[in-house]
């Protein structure tokens, strides 16, 4: 055997430069799309580019986006919650019911958020305690919660919320900056820290990828999933407070179909529908995109039914595109 002089070889600890991977990431694509839609909107209608108009645009998506933040965590963990819109309806109904008993503004907010928490915990217990698939459980509770609202309300509506209650959905913190929008920004930062900077967030990613490895590493998988369902419940309760306050009334058909828009936001934001991947920044960007698109279409007098076609198409496209791109890539390698 001949002796080879021993030299160390420099092996890179990552294959692509971080700047390069950031440049070609889903987030930068989303940012590009958001800016494009913004510019298109500016040219499409003269009413778009004014502070109050833009402020109105934020109302269009903040309530859904608040739920999307929590939904992102649920989907990354490999589960899904389809009952969020029904929770809004039920929480709003419970607030209306509390109003009939003379409960004041702080009490109404507490009732809304608490109802959301209980509904979320109910989902979570069915999924983690009984080990049922979340898609089936939440399809069931989607009908169940909304059905309860219909039983309580029938074709009636609750009205007459106190004036101080209107602040949550209609109030402004400063100039054109609404309370809803500020709340969304604060929540986005908190969820970013939770998902990307804490061990709880890391466990969510690992559970979505390999729940058995997580369990064998001592991660309490079922408890974490229960917490995540409670979290979507709470955020749905918060959205119920905002929406009820903004509309000033409760009907059982409130927030109909929102679960699809929330999930579209999450998936558009780059969260893998199969679990294990995603980011809060992506979800926030996707929320802005959805808000700008629907608001722009609204200014152009596009009817609601066309908008739901656009959103449905968007959902299919964002799920299909990465899969198709991957297939194309694999074909090229062969």
């Amino acid at each position: 055997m001949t002796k080879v002089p021993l030299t160390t070889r420099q092996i890179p600890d990552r294959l692509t430069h971080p700047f390069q991977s950031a440049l070609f990431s889903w987030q930068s694509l989303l940012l590009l799309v958001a800016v494009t839609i913004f510019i298109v909107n500016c040219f499409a209608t003269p009413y778009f580019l004014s502070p109050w108009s833009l402020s109105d645009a934020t109302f269009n998506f903040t309530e859904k986006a608040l739920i999307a933040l929590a939904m992102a965590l649920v989907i990354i963990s490999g589960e899904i919650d389809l009952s969020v819109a029904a929770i809004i309806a039920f929480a709003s109904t419970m607030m209306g019911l509390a109003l009939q008993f003379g409960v004041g503004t702080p009490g109404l907010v507490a009732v809304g958020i608490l109802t959301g928490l209980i509904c979320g915990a109910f989902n979570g217990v069915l999924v983690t305690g009984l080990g049922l698939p979340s898609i089936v459980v939440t399809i069931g509770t989607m009908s169940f919660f909304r059905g309860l609202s219909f039983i309580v309300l029938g074709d009636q509506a609750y009205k007459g919320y106190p004036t101080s209650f209107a602040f949550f959905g209609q109030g402004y913190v400063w100039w054109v900056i609404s309370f809803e929008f500020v709340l969304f920004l604060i929540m986005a930062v908190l969820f970013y820290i939770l998902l990307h900077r804490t061990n709880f967030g890391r466990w969510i990613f690992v559970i979505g990828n390999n729940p058995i490895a997580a369990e064998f590493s001592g991660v309490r998988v079922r408890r974490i999933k229960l917490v995540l369902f409670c979290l979507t419940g709470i955020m749905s309760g918060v959205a119920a407070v905002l929406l009820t306050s903004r509309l000033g009334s409760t009907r059982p058909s409130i927030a109909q179909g929102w679960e699809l828009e929330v999930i579209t936001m999450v998936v558009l934001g780059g969260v893998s529908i199969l679990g294990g991947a995603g980011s809060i920044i992506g979800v926030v960007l996707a929320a802005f995109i959805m808000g700008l698109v629907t608001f722009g279409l609204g200014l152009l007098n596009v009817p609601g039914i066309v908008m739901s076609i656009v959103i449905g198409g968007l959902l299919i496209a964002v799920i299909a595109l990465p899969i198709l791109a991957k297939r194309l890539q694999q074909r090229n390698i062969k």
Partner: protein
Amino acid sequence: MSSETSGTPLVEIKDLSIAFGGIKAVDQASVDLFPGEVVAILGHNGAGKSTLIKVLSGAYKRDGGQIFVNGEEADINNPRDAKQYGIETIYQTLAVADNVDAAANLYLGREILTSFGTLDDAAMEAEARKVMGRLNPNFQRFKEPVSKLSGGQRQSVAIARAILFNARILIMDEPTAALGPQETEQVSELIQQLKKEGIGIFLISHDIHDVFDLADRVAVMKNGQMVGYARTEDVSKDEVLGMIIMGKCPAGAVAGPGAMQEA
């Protein structure tokens, strides 16, 4: 059992039984493991070896029997309990989470946190570099998710994770089944090093060739029962094969309850 091993065993499993809906997957099986020893648990698919070991790692609850760790009875009901007794399990397929990097896998469930309660990724990566440097000096790809690593690299991440937290007892399920020759060599070197540190290792395999040279003793299972125990130096591979296939105990082995009865 083996007469030459003395002192308190690291683990002693006594008359352990577990049934799934009337089928006795493990029936009154006993096995022990001493510090610095490698015991291979062999048997066909369905012989009960994985089930036996999953009870030890906390994945299944036993119906009967006892587990002793360092001579004291252990109460193991879930993987967290098993960890507290220093028992770590490495599964071939389930070992790592693909979507995060090596350091995140090493510290999964026991993350280092900053004083703000957030993840201290820099500290974890620095520790990971130290540990991995000892196990597998060629390993450099610390910033990539584990899905981009080779089979051997993933296996070394899994093993590093197990030993990082002072495991005393290591369970390795088919440790070399998916590895190439060079990577298998790496794993066997690693096992030698762990033995020197006094760690006891259970190797689970259905393929005797994978583990015969690594093990000090073999314990063979068939139909949920223990066929027998033998020191690898006292028996040949063919004799152990006879134990696995026919339940026939050779002269060099100690017969268990599952051994074929000579009529």
